[in-house]
């Protein structure tokens, strides 16, 4: 227990170091781009608008706006880092890539009888996932004495033992020994470089080819952007596992919309009831206050036990995710009504019903919209998580299925689409808000 805790703390410490380095790099690039941009000279942009006349800007939040040039440069930088780290073909530069292609090395061996020989080993390193995995042709020349030429093929970043002795004269007898690689002496545990990698002699005396691994990331961990794009086009055309890309996304959206709709349908009236009636507030208060902090994700197992993995379970889960948020939003909307407005309405002859429909309902719309935005965000996150656990279709289902086959590019596409749609939902909600409650924040 204590040891585990210590391990976690040590890991966290190294994470702090790692994250600091990543941030430092990113911010350094940001600073560099900033100076380059200013050096190119866009001073005139700073001279526009009333804000430019402010002398106090540091600390004046209203004087700080998102610099769009910085936003674009930041996103581009992320893509460039992605490309550099993965050795993207789209960029003229990248970290050193792993060696691929054909190369060769020469070895010299001596057998038990003391006879010598020299032969060539043709090496082919093919790209990961390439179709062309056949060994290269054996070189016709360069062999002499007991040794006979060999050939070997292996994928990039991998190592392979080459049994050069297997076809040599006396190679299977005791006393056979490889003495030199490319003219340099070698012994067990030592290594000799050759173009594109090195040859290592293992303790057993066998040779192992180790092509240069480079410093770029393997596609398994992070595929380059162009691979993701190609996969996206393929998914767009063919879908994955028989389900179209957009069909997956639509199913996720449909679940969210239905669950959210149910949450609003029951949550808003319940919230109003809690805001207007002491008995009902007392009745529901403990339930709401207890359920509100329970993350909807914690309900997934229960919902699966109750409803199975079908649509009913997912919609129920999203309903529960949205319900408490909408109740609290509607309740806050009712509590937030200025008592003067209520008094004014009664003094003007409004009945209770009229007060509810004409004053309390519109007055609580801004709060309800805020809650709806939060609820939508939570529902979107919850649906993806629920699909990760069990679903037949959906964005979350797609990425969890792809991850089982280590199709990292599909996982990335799924994540990007989930992010874009989550953002899109929020933008739509904000647009609806400014259209429907233009008085928000201006009362």
């Amino acid at each position: 227990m204590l040891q585990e805790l210590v391990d976690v703390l040590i890991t966290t410490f190294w994470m702090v170091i790692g994250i600091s380095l990543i941030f430092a790099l990113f911010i350094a690039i940001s600073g560099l781009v900033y100076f380059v941009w200013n050096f190119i000279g866009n001073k005139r942009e700073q001279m526009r608008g009333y804000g430019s006349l402010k002398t106090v800007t540091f600390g004046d939040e209203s004087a700080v706006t998102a610099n769009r040039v910085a936003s674009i440069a930041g996103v581009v930088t992320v893509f460039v880092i992605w490309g550099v780290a993965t050795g993207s073909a789209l960029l003229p530069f990248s970290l050193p890539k792993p060696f691929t292609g054909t190369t060769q090395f020469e070895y010299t061996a001596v057998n038990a009888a003391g006879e010598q020989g020299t032969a060539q080993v043709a090496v082919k390193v093919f790209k990961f996932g390439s179709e062309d995995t056949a060994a290269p042709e054996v070189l016709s020349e360069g062999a002499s004495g007991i040794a006979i030429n060999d050939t070997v093929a292996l994928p990039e970043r991998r190592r392979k033992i080459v049994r050069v002795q297997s076809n040599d004269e006396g190679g299977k007898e005791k006393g056979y020994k490889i003495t030199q690689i490319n003219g340099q002496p070698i012994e067990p545990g030592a290594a000799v470089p050759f173009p594109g990698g090195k040859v290592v002699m293992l303790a057993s005396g066998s040779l192992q080819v180790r092509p240069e691994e480079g410093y770029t990331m393997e596609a398994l961990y992070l595929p380059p952007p162009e691979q993701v794009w190609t996969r996206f086009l393929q998914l767009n055309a063919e879908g994955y596992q028989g389900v179209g890309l957009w069909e997956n996304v639509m199913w996720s959206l449909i679940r969210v919309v239905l669950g959210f709709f149910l949450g609003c349908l029951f949550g808003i009236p319940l919230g109003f009831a809690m805001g207007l009636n002491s008995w009902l507030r007392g009745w529901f208060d403990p339930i709401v206050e207890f359920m509100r902090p329970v993350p909807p994700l914690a309900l997934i197992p229960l919902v699966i036990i109750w409803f199975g993995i079908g649509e009913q379970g997912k919609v129920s889960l999203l309903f529960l995710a949205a319900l408490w948020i909408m109740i609290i939003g509607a309740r806050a909307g009712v509590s937030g009504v200025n008592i003067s407005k209520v008094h004014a309405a009664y003094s003007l002859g409004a009945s209770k019903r009229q007060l509810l429909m004409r004053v309390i309902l519109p007055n609580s719309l801004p709060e309800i919209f805020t809650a709806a935005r939060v609820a939508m965000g939570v529902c979107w996150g919850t649906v993806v998580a629920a699909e990760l656990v069990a679903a037949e279709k959906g964005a979350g289902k797609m990425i969890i299925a792809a991850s089982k086959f280590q199709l990292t590019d599909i996982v990335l596409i799924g994540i990007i689409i989930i992010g874009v749609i989550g953002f899109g939902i929020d933008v739509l909600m904000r647009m609806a808000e400014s259209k429907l409650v233009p008085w928000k924040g201006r009362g």
Partner: protein
Amino acid sequence: MSGLIVDDISMTFELPAGGSVEALKNVSLDIKEGELISVLGPSGCGKTTLLNILAGFLAPTGGEITLNEHPVKGPSSERGMVFQQGALFEWMNVSKNIGFGPQMRGTPQAEIDRRVTELLGIVGLQDFGQKMIYELSGGMQQRVALARCLANDPDVILMDEPLGALDALTREKMQSLVLDIWKKTGKTIILITHSVEEALLLGERLVVMAPRPGRIHKQYRLPFAEIGVGADLRVVKQHKDFGKTRDEILNMIWDMEEEIMGRTETA
């Protein structure tokens, strides 16, 4: 008999920590139809409590209020109220706000439109009917509040420091408007303020209240409201009695405040 009768009103709040506060004690007022009354007093003298009781938002713990021989039991459109600020409905435009009362009572739309147009003219907002509330300045918003109250044609208009949040210039204009409306409509108006000048200008009758317990301390009959109708209020302030009365009331309130402070300090 007609008019608003405040008969021996008392209001005692029980404090949650024990004990009680007498916000009002034995307050009686006899307000005739068409009277313009201003109520003045230091903070904590119960003037807002009195207004809330008159409006029917609070039930007094003792005494009774009758309007035109009917006891006041709750809010009603016969007693309109103009609030300090924030009581307009931001989700409606100016015309809808003004027409709210008649609409609630089922008045035909044509009649509402006619009434709204007329009132927009009275309060000087002819071109602002379609504006939203948040597009108006504070002074304009209070004009809308006044018009909204008048749209219901109430017997009594209660004003709870309606001009308190306005700047001096706008305030003066609004004071003239209140006087105009009082004269034109002949409504009973009860105005609460803590500006002594405003109380003098907008009160045929001025009620000074005293705190702890909240009670009526002194009443004045003043000529300034009558003089002020249609006149320049700055001229009214030059009237020989204006300054004298103002100083007298200021001293009175000053003494009350001193007394409260003294009591708090020794407590």
